[in-house]
């Protein structure tokens, strides 16, 4: 199930693949709870992934995502866990997007998404530049996009934890309450989320700015 997209952070990937295989097996076996878990985890990520590739056309994104997920849920029994479930979804999503656009006589976006272009790493490196700190608005916008893509490839709870902490300013207590876990467990989730973000960034872009090396 190779996709051309780097397949997630190495450390996260091992446990994530295990979780993905288990989830796929349960969905294929007919577990209602597993289906709801699968949908909650992957629908928003896949929708955002698609929306950014169809110029914000929500109706088209809805159709593409629906077709993709309908295919995936009927083939769950065949998922072997060779790539992350999200990577597999993205690959099928790209195919569905292409065939739908073709059928409607439309063309895919000319500007291939950055993360789909292998030459992107060099550009990313230059964006961070010698100062290691993005300054211009153009740089900021580009980096923001890279960060959003990286977050999308993280397990949903990690991205949510990072977003709660660093954008919404939530406390660890509040994060714990959101996930219905103890403060200690919330701290652990946050710590692992930070680690996964760093590894994800490196894995996706094959590049780690100096300042992320900490």
């Amino acid at each position, binding site marked *: 199930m190779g996709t051309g997209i780097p397949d997630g952070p190495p450390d996260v990937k091992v446990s994530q693949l295990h979780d993905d295989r288990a989830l796929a097996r349960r*969905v294929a076996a*007919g577990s*209602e709870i597993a*289906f*709801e878990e699968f*949908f909650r985890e992957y*629908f*928003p990520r896949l*929708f*955002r992934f698609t*929306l950014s590739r169809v110029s914000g056309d*929500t109706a088209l994104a*809805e159709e593409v*995502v*629906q077709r993709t*997920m*309908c295919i995936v*849920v*009927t083939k769950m*029994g065949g998922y072997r866990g060779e790539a992350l479930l999200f990577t597999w979804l993205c690959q099928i999503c790209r195919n569905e997007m292409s065939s739908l656009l073709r059928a409607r006589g439309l063309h895919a976006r000319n500007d291939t998404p950055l993360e789909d272009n292998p030459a992107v790493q060099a550009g990313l490196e230059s964006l961070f530049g010698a100062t290691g700190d*993005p300054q211009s608005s153009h740089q*900021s916008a580009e*980096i*923001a*996009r890279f*960060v*959003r893509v990286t*977050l*999308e490839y993280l397990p949903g709870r990690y*991205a949510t934890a*990072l*977003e709660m*902490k*660093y*954008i*919404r*300013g*939530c*406390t*660890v*207590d509040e994060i714990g309450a959101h996930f219905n876990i103890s*403060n200690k467990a919330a*701290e652990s989730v*946050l*710590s692992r989320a*930070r*680690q996964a*973000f*760093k590894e994800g960034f490196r894995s996706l872009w094959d590049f780690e*700015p100096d*300042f*992320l*090396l*900490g």
Partner: protein
Amino acid sequence: MSNDDDSKYEAGGRGGGAPADDPIAKLIHLAGPRGTVPAAIERRVHDRVRTEWRRSIVRGRTLRWGIPLALAASVVIAVTVAYRTPDEAPRAVLTPVATIVRINGAPAAAANRPSPGLLVGGRLYAGDTIATAAGQGISLRMNGNLSLRVAGETTLRIDSADAVTLASGRVYADSGEGMERAGALTVTTDAGVATDVGTQFAVAYRRGEMSVAVREGQVDVSGHNRSWTADSGDRLVLRPNSGVTFERVAKYGDYWDWAVALAPAFDINNRPLHEFLEWAARETGKQLEYASDDVRRAAMLTDVRGASVADLTPSEALQAVLPTTHFDFRIDERRIVIGE
């Protein structure tokens, strides 16, 4: 960065904004919140994907049981194909997905097709819409042998042989039992989706409220971005903006009368009395009881002959047939009791 380094960002204090010395915090703050997905889109996609998933699960189970039968049947099919003449070659024509087997009250009309309306024996195709008036009812045999009954004041679109969309009104489905069981049926409304798992069930939808009553078997229901399983005797009600409630409903009685009145005809001639009684019991939701095993055996060996009961409801047919046999019988609200 080590975990020790991370710990300074995980204190219990409110972490609004991005600490100047934390690059990860700065990056995530720079990216801003991820976009939210419109709830209506999420709900629609959820229900459709779930429906497809349930179908694949049911198909998978059917396939596992069906393979030995299919292997046996393939012998017959092979013979048929071998002797088919060129005139019988497949044609690219619309295939009917349902047949009308009973109409009560004035004939209903397929809204998107020209009159003269619908008659018993008429075929329906994917995309046809049925609209019934008060006092009318129509009974369909879907391809795959499922019985679908449409109450009065109902608007229903036939999407395929195993899927319908209920715009408003009531439908009842019976997918049979045992070896005669048909495939699953999916009923979609604006409020949710019901998929049977081998059952008799009714779906009603009006003004945003959807109810699913299960007489026998199980039905999976999804709506409001969640899903439930309703079992035999459950009546699940999805109300707009107020979640779901479960109530109990008896297998017999007024609730099902309209659907019983639309039961497909049973051809009684030269059929064992026991088969007729089982059909009537299933249709009316009553328990069939024999006074003894000897009486049961006798009912199995007794063939029914005489006039057709095709125009009668199951309750009327019981009252017409049983007095012509030598068996004592008693019918009450819950039971059909056959004696010596």
